[in-house]
């Protein structure tokens, strides 16, 4: 994989940091993958140029985007699937073509949804009318309508908040072109390439210099529009000195007949800018979630990730922060819940390039009923990043003895002028604590749920109230399931 990246077919960056960035990109995704190409799964030719051209035409792409898609397709065929994380052989790569071909083929009806999903909707108290919509089986959602209201509030400040398709041809078309998949190039890994070839939907946000956006920008609905939750692309650019909070996702389980999700999130945080990016994801339990999220911070910039990962059969998710500018700062606060039949490989990456940069990782993972949760993180402090500070704190809670929790924290520190701390804890619910709570009249199930919610509290308290409540409901729901 690394071999191929060297003759990168796509121009990554005009930046004079290009060397640096290229260097960074190598291995951003693959934590440890020394396997050679012959081990890789050889891909079916199913996804053809013709199909990609068709998608591009349906979307009325500008020419450069069609070229981009075709180049990505080529890379997609050249790369193998990652070999280091949870097995993804259940993912039928030969059927990729049907995943992306036609929206109508992918749509299920409400009746066809698995029972656990239907039940989840009951329990989350979502009205029937919205359920079909949220489950991704409703009629095509008019995304323009949803954006309209939010946009009105912020557009006076000069903030652009729109869907990716419109952004490609709108006023900021050049800006989009300059940034699109520059942080996560298609060469990064197979699913990034796939994304580059067939992406569809997602949001574009641009916050002009010196702008503080008071209300969080939320994309609650869009993620649930049919098809859009699958290869959606989120591009956020926060200009110098600006501040914004973007919230994506919702607790309603998202069902797709096609069980691959390969979204991409690229966040550009300008000088002294501040971006908080919060997500709660709840994928249906058949989903392979191979999402790539990455942020880059200029001097004095701050990125804060709040991340709740629920659902999916297999997840690979390691939001990455590149601390390029001096004094830039990144925080990652995340929670993962792996239940029966789930293998979730999640964590975060921090790459310190600038001087006096700092990063904090605080993650919680919960597993039960045989679920496997692996915390995987990497902190890299480059030679030039003198005065860097990094701290990693990961806690796991195992709710029974058949579940598994692993931590794989990696550190690569190339300067001795850095300050690095690490703490990992794996625990179980204490029977004593359950007894204590029950002695106050709380039922056993409720006591256990409260302990788990408490464990998740460092994450939920970072979320806006209604999202925190949703997340707690989700945890309860997961606890109740066998």
């Amino acid at each position, binding site marked *: 994989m690394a071999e191929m990246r060297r003759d990168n077919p796509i121009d990554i960056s005009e930046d004079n940091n290009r060397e640096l960035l290229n260097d960074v990109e190598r291995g951003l995704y693959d934590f440890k993958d020394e396997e050679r190409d012959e081990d890789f799964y050889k891909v079916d030719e199913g996804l053809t140029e013709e199909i990609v051209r068709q998608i591009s035409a349906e979307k009325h792409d500008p020419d450069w985007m069609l070229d981009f898609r075709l180049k990505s397709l080529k890379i997609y065929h050249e790369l193998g699937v990652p070999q280091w994380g949870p097995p993804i052989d259940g993912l039928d790569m030969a059927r990729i073509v049907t995943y992306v071909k036609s929206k109508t083929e992918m749509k299920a009806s409400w009746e066809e949804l698995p029972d656990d999903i239907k039940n989840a909707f009951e329990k989350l108290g979502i009205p029937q009318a919205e359920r079909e919509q949220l489950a991704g089986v409703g009629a095509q959602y008019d995304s323009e309508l949803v954006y309209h209201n939010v946009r009105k509030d912020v557009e006076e400040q000069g903030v652009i908040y729109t869907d990716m398709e419109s952004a490609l041809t709108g006023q900021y078309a050049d800006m989009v072109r300059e940034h699109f998949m520059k942080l996560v190039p298609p060469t990064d890994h197979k699913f990034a390439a796939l994304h580059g070839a067939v992406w569809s939907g997602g949001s574009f946000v641009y916050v002009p210099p010196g702008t503080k956006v008071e209300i969080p920008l939320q994309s609650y609905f869009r993620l649930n529009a049919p098809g859009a939750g699958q290869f959606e692309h989120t591009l956020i650019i926060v200009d110098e000195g600006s501040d914004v909070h973007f919230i994506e996702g919702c607790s309603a389980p998202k069902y797709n007949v096609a069980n691959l999700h390969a979204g991409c999130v690229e966040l550009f945080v300008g000088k002294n800018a501040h971006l908080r990016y919060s997500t709660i994801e709840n994928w249906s339990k058949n989903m392979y979630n191979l999402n790539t999220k990455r942020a880059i911070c200029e001097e004095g910039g701050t990125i804060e990730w709040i991340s709740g990962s629920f659902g999916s059969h297999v997840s690979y998710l390691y939001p990455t922060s590149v601390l390029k500018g001096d004094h830039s700062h990144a925080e990652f606060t995340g929670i993962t819940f792996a239940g029966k039949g789930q293998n979730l490989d999640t964590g975060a990456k921090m790459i310190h390039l600038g001087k006096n940069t700092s990063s904090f990782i605080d993650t919680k993972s919960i597993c039960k009923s045989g679920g496997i949760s692996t915390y995987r993180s990497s902190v890299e402090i480059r030679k030039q990043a003198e005065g860097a500070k990094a701290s990693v704190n990961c806690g796991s809670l195992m709710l029974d003895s058949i579940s598994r929790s692993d931590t794989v924290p990696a550190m690569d520190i190339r300067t001795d002028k850095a300050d690095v701390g690490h703490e990992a804890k794996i625990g179980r619910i204490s029977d004593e604590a359950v007894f204590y709570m*029950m002695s106050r009249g*709380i039922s056993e199930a*409720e006591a256990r749920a409260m302990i788990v919610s408490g*464990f998740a509290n460092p994450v939920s308290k970072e979320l806006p109230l209604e999202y925190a409540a949703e997340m707690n409901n989700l945890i309860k729901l997961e606890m109740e399931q066998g």
Partner: protein
Amino acid sequence: MSETILEIKDLSAGIEGEEILHHINLQVGRGEIHVLMGHNGAGKSTLGNVIMGSPVYQMTGGQILFEGEDITQLSVDARAKKGIFLSFQNPLEVPGLSMEAFLRNAIREKTGKPVKIFQFKKRMEEVLKLLDMDASYVDRDLNVGFSGGEKKKAEIFQLLMLEPKLAILDETDSGLDVDAVRTVSKGIDIFCQNGGTLLIITHSTRILDALKVDHTHVLIDGKIVAEGDGSLVDEINQGGYAKYTK
């Protein structure tokens, strides 16, 4: 003697393979104050835990009656709902769960009704003030980072908020400074004045000074070896347990 609220009949209990309590008989009348004394390791905490229904211990014989009803088979929370409260010798910590949220949930589960937030907050304020506790306690995670004494005070705080019928206080007075002993006594006194019944496990008389003890039980090596009124407490404090261990 007033109407019996708690009756323990021929109770034997222990952990796997080892009996700790042997043939215990004990009766507590409603509104009374009972003291349970005994050397370290005598089985006092075990008895308190068994009455509460701790799954750590197995009952190998006997019965526990509460208000005339056999509660031997009831779950811990069911016992709590009936009105039994145990102040723990070592209260547990629950990170991420605030005292306030914990109590609100407990009251809701106990009463089966949603908690009226305004009333609840007002009541919390009153009790905090009474116990000379800083208002910030209720926002903090349950017992997390509380000092030994603070944990004990927090138990009394919970007692007054939950208003059970019978409270078993397991060394709630140990580790308290003089002022804290006084505030805890004050809290206990209020609980009694409101008709509460007490079974106090203690090694000292400090907490009892302000209370009128009705009955004392002496537990030695898992057996009740002596009974008496409040004066037995002083007697033991002077003479120790030597007299009973022969």
